[in-house]
């Protein structure tokens, strides 16, 4: 059931990205899958975060029409970095989260770019620029979302208490 929820959330993130991105161009610069991975790493299980990273990556590749594995590789790597960072450091602060998410997003994009180069797949420097922009926007959106979630959790906890 847990993994079904995991898969469902991954699918939902990608579908939402597709639908919303079609109508709002700027939404394409928000990497919902990375936010989902971060959520899983921060609030749930680090192991499951890895699965979420892999699954969302594969789904993203499928949606983009790329050979399966490029995004999966990058997202898994990002998930690992976020999970490890959340274990070793205090990631409660907003700036820390921002930096961590931006860095993970960049790492994911760089790893894909490296795979492109290794496998002689055509790529351009625009990809890197767009990836950097996407990392910043995603990190910003992610920090806001997690802040809202934290606030919600605090309120909810108080009510329960």
């Amino acid at each position, binding site marked *: 059931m847990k993994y079904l929820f995991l898969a469902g959330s991954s699918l939902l993130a990608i579908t939402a990205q597709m639908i919303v991105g079609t109508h709002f161009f700027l939404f394409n610069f928000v990497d919902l899958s990375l936010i989902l991975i971060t959520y899983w790493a921060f609030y749930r299980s*680090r*192991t499951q975060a*890895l*699965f979420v*990273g*892999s699954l969302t*990556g*594969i789904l993203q590749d499928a949606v983009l029409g790329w*050979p*399966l*594995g*490029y995004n*999966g*590789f990058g997202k*898994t*790597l990002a998930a*690992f970095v976020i*999970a*490890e960072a959340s*274990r070793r450091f205090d990631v409660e602060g907003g700036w820390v989260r921002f930096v961590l998410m931006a860095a993970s997003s960049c790492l994911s994009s760089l790893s894909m770019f490296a*795979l492109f180069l290794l*496998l*002689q*797949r055509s790529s351009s420097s625009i990809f890197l620029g767009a990836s950097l922009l996407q990392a910043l926007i995603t990190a910003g959106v992610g920090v806001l979302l997690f802040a809202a979630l934290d606030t919600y959790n605090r309120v909810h906890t108080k009510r329960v208490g």
Partner: protein
Amino acid sequence: MSIELASKGEGRILYLVIALLLLHLTLISIQVEDPSGTLLFKKCVLLAASPMLNGASNAARAFSHFWTGYLWLHGARAENARLKEDVRQLVLLNSSLAQAEEENSRLQRLLAFGVSFPYQTLGARVIGRTPNFLSSTLYLDRGSLDGVRADQPVVSDAGVVGRTVLVTSNNCQVQLITNADASVGVMVERTRVPGVVRGTENLLLDLNYIGNTEEVNVGDALVTSGLDGIFPKGLPVGKVVDSQKGKTGFRTIRVEPSADIIRIEEVLVLLGPPKPVTDPLTPGAVK
């Protein structure tokens, strides 16, 4: 305890990451082709499998080599010995055949000589000689039972060899012309000057009783003169290799025998007077 669990969990995550990354790389390689159109997955599999394939191939080769080189050859020593024996026998056979062919050739020449010569001849094989490099005595496989008598000429296809001196029932002894006691009446074929050839226990003979005034040159052939009562006239004896005027009124002449005295193996013994020749015009008549 908690540290141990944490470390276990950390190790598990690391393995999981590695496994997931490998999964993605595998996924990519299954779909992406290299510039030559080969799937990367196939290439990777081949790349990963090649050390194993090479190892297996080397192992198989080593085993095969061991099998064929050692186990399979357990009977090789016996076979080798047998083959060596076969080779030795074949070499002997080959040598024997070569000798037989050579002997056949020599006998054919001797036979032709005997046929062309108007004497009753008897072919004989040399069965022994005195143990001396410059052998001056031979033993033949023919004796009195074959009609051989003492003082009969012995010749080869090249010329005079010697004469029989001692005859038993099955063998005879031949005194070669190189023997110091041997002498043959000869004449210079070109000038018909008579003389006597004597053995010197050397490979060369001396030609005696040729006056200084006679012309005898190096290369002149000598034939039997028929005056010694043993050798019929006209048999080749040798060639002059040295001819000089002597102080005693006679020339000093050295002669090389026509017959190969050292290597001779078959000879003809001239048994008797000339064969009766039938006149083809008058059948039954003897010339």
